């Protein structure tokens, strides 16, 4: 029982980070109907940027997030304008999957050249600190990572629900033609939306670097998890991404602590398959128009 509750605590704390990564992925899909295979590489690039700021200037990864998110936002906008917009103009959007994979490989190459392929990790002073609450261990770094992810998701929620730009994004997701007829410029929303997705990847990357060792090839493992989370939650649903991340993280952590770590990865994919068999659109996905 103790192992089970410890697993749940660990799973919930880790879920915040995955929810943040997946929210960017699902946001991009909701706006542009593009499955962004570069999202994992963007998370790793965010991790590298915050690692570099920490090792070179001593800036704590949790404090460097505003810098990395701005940089990655600009990168995201550039990727959309340079690589994805021409596809829409030529009515070849079906190629976006290949293009985002190419962007992932490009980013991987740049990271390999810049930081080599050595595994890195951001070791702060509090990396090994932990608290014991009612006999259960909570590592400080995971708690910070969780709180920060929740705060970032809160900012994203406010942006989408309390601002004019957020209303335009939600409108575009729900009814693109109607949004266009009301004066929403689809190309602008797409570029800024892709930038926003990349910015969430940067915030998640800073936190990811604190929790796990990484190198330029780590994005392959990440993207498979992210795609599974957004499929489980329902493509285009941020609420679904949060729930999907909770299911992924807690089920993996529970099985790892209660049965065996070697079964934890498989458990999640079994859950994913079962959910998709019963509800192909995912837990919170819609068969017609989406909603975020």
């Amino acid at each position: 029982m103790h192992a089970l509750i410890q697993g749940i605590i660990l799973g919930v704390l880790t879920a915040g980070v995955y929810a943040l990564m997946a929210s960017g992925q699902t946001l991009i899909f909701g706006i542009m109907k593009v499955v962004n295979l570069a999202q994992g590489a963007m998370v790793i690039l965010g991790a590298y940027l915050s690692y570099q700021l920490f090792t070179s200037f001593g800036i704590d990864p949790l404090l460097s997030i505003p810098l990395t998110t701005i940089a990655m936002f600009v990168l995201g906008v550039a990727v959309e304008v340079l690589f994805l917009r021409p596809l829409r103009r030529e009515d070849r959007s079906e190629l976006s999957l290949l293009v985002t994979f190419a962007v992932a490989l490009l980013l991987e190459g740049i990271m390999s050249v810049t930081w080599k392929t050595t595994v890195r990790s951001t070791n702060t002073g509090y990396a090994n600190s932990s608290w014991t609450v009612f006999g259960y261990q909570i590592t400080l770094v995971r708690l910070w990572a969780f709180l920060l992810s929740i705060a970032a998701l809160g900012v994203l929620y406010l942006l989408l629900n309390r601002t004019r730009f957020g209303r335009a994004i939600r409108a575009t997701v729900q009814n693109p033609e109607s949004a266009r007829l009301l004066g929403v410029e689809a190309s602008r929303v797409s570029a800024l939306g892709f930038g926003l997705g990349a910015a969430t990847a940067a915030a998640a990357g800073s936190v990811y670097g604190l929790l796990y060792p990484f190198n330029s090839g780590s994005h392959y493992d990440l993207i498979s998890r992210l795609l599974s989370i957004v499929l489980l939650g329902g493509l285009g649903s941020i609420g679904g991404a949060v729930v999907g991340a909770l299911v992924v993280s807690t089920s993996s952590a529970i099985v790892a602590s209660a049965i065996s770590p070697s079964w934890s990865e498989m458990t999640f994919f079994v859950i994913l398959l079962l959910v998709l068999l019963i509800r192909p659109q995912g837990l919170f996905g819609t068969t017609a128009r989406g909603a975020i």
Partner: protein
Amino acid sequence: MTTLLTLHDVVAGYGAGDILKGVDLEVSTGTVTCLIGPNGAGKSTVLKCVSGLLRPRLGSVRFAGEQINGLSPRARLLKGIVHVPQDRSLFPAMTVADNLLMGGYALKDQKAVRRRIEEAAEVFPICRSRAAEHAGSLSGGEQKQVELARTLVLDPGLILLDEPSIGLDPKSRHQVFASIRTLAEAGRTVLLVEQNARSGLAASDFGAVLESGVVRLVDTGANLLTDPEVARLYLGASGAHSSPGASGASSAADVSAASTTSSEGAR
């Protein structure tokens, strides 16, 4: 009455084919004009050419005296042309209040937007009573009322309505046409496409018959409602006025011939 919208010899279509093959149409300020015609005649395509969703290949679209062929949908919106498409155009997972705010998205003056939302709610009280509910939870007729209210947020010069009664039950259809009359009485200019020709013409000052991409006949709504040929072809009349064995082709020719003798044909 001054002419607000003029389409002259408009040719437009999708891919290689032309749907509109030389449309001529005028809409006067402060009137409701209803376009009727068979499926595939190009009624919705006319509206798309006016709102900018489709660029004509030939011909001109003039609004308030200015040629607008090359303008984007957003630029036309800012000139006061609002298009309510055939499918339900609300954002179902957003509240009614947020949907109305989206109606003024193109405007910078948010104070004016909020004032106009209040004014629209005077005309369509549902916007106030159901403001906090998701638009997707409203009935079809209620959604149409919110769509019409949303058009008012821009204080439009011209409202384009594409099949506003499609998919609605009789009671909701009645509500929608009553709402269109409300707009007309407030002096709004409306160009309406309607499959339910009898209700559409009854709610309109003028009507136009579109067949095979060309306007065949223009007259007042009342005259078209009593025109035996129009009644036989589009109003589901019993056939009392039709000649036995008349084919679709000869009927179209008859309607075409009628257009040349219409007293309001210059409209």
